[in-house]
């Protein structure tokens, strides 16, 4: 947009053009004192010119007008993005509830718990749930499963996919035509074919696959979740120096956050727990240390409460701290048994 459209004194317009400021955008990034110096005008007049320019840009909706800092965006602009973030359900309504609807795309979520609590089960369930067609409330997308411990069982994935498909048919009534359209996609074999599996055997391979995902996700734009099971396995034993480990982990978390944001995928990291000595007693906390604890957007701890499994939000920029029960059944992750009993009684 030309400087000539600015509602300012023509003398100023002439000075702007002769100083080399021909477009509105060229004025936007300049400081008032510099402008005053170059145009040889009083400081407050320079401030006025800049104000008017910004107003004009906003009026015509020029991009980057708020870019006093290049690449920045205002919170208002980001709000609509945040509201449009896609969600992947976990299979348990209570669990989804504390997560704000499900695992968010574009964010890194870390989940950890004692062995046997259901981390791998959650990973497999999400790899299946992301594939539910859009017309049934899912994302109709593919999943990447990075297995560092060898705990992924394709037979179990088949079982979970089958149960998910049956529950979806049962819960939603659709016209015959819609059912026929989705018939082909809603087969357990098809679901399994959409889980892209990497088996990682060392920390070097783990770093390599995370780096490679940048190119891989570019080529496979239909992937909407990346699950790493588990993030800490190869890092708890292979490193002789903790300093190096921290540096490598930081790089890795940086990469993962970049991937989540750039490709709008959900990144799910499954972690072990360890005992931390605080205030005279040992508490269960997620592995990999304090520095790593800063690396994820959301942290969820899975724990036992008597015989029931629970999930608690330990850290999140916007989710309130809350816990919810869930259960691991033959069909996968579902509501806790007591939840079902409560509904039946009603």
């Amino acid at each position: 947009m030309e400087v000539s459209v600015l509602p300012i004194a023509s003398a100023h317009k002439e000075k702007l053009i002769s100083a080399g400021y021909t477009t509105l955008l060229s004025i936007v990034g300049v400081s008032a004192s510099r402008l005053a110096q170059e145009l040889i005008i009083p400081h407050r007049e320079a401030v006025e010119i800049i104000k008017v320019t910004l107003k004009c840009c906003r009026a015509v909706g020029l991009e980057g007008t708020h870019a006093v800092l290049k690449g920045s965006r205002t919170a208002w602009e980001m709000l609509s993005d945040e509201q449009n973030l896609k969600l992947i359900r976990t299979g348990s309504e209570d669990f989804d509830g504390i997560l704000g609807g499900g695992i968010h795309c574009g964010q890194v979520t870390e989940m950890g718990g004692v062995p046997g609590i259901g981390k791998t089960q959650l990973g497999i369930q999400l790899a299946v749930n992301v594939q539910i067609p859009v017309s049934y409330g899912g994302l109709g997308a593919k999943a990447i499963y990075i297995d560092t411990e060898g705990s992924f069982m394709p037979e179990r994935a088949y079982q979970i996919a089958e149960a998910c498909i049956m529950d979806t048919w049962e819960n939603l009534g659709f016209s015959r035509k819609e059912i026929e359209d989705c018939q082909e996609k809603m087969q357990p074999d098809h679901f399994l074919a959409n889980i892209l599996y990497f088996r990682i055997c060392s920390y070097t391979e783990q770093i390599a696959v995370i780096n490679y995902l940048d190119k891989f996700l570019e080529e496979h734009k239909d992937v909407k979740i990346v699950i790493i099971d588990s993030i800490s396995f190869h890092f708890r034993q292979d490193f002789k120096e903790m300093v190096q480990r921290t540096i490598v982990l930081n790089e890795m978390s940086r990469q993962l956050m970049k991937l989540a944001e750039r490709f709008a995928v959900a990144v799910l990291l499954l972690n072990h727990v360890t005992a931390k000595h605080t205030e005279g007693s040992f508490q269960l906390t997620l592995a990999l240390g304090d520095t790593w604890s800063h690396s994820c957007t959301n942290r969820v701890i899975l724990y036992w409460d008597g015989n029931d499994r629970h999930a608690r939000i330990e850290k999140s920029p916007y989710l309130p701290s809350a816990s919810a029960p869930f259960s691991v059944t033959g069909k996968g992750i579902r509501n806790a048994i007591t939840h079902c009993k409560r509904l039946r009684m009603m």
Partner: protein
Amino acid sequence: MANKLVAHMGLAQSIANRLAARNIRTAKDALSLPEFDLMTLLGVDMKDVKEAVARISEVACPPYQTALSLLEERLMNDTSGGRLPTSLTGLDDALGGGIPFGVLTELVGPSGIGKSQFCLKLSLLAALPASYGGLDGRVIYIDTESKFSSRRMIEIGRNSFPKIFHSEGMAQEMAGRIIVLRQTSLSEITER
């Protein structure tokens, strides 16, 4: 994959030379350093470092497969579905057929409950010919507490599979398939 040589990865000659000069020979060496450190170490632009790291990562990354092909592989590889049936129907049901191949299974329990006895029985089951429901294979038995008793094993064999063990030479054949290693210290075990 971690030990793949950087020299064979098709990197630009100038970067490859510098990596070699700094003794960065394998994928592991290159990927253990953050990109910033690599940049200062090699004396090149960040752009070149990023390209090199991307290339090394791509080559060092293991190939992917779909969960479907993983399942098909498992079903195809072994007629018994890749598992060792334990002959305890309840346990076999819970395990989905038996002790699975390709993964570690840990058997845990207080002393006296029957872990070693269970292992003896499993060794026999693995050694048995396929016609009798076994895997027709050999067994490596690592015995750290000197609990392996050949006599007891043959007694189990005679009582559980009388047909096989009472025929000529079969007991010797079966017992001959079980290789026992007696390690007396931690270092010996890890060496093995």
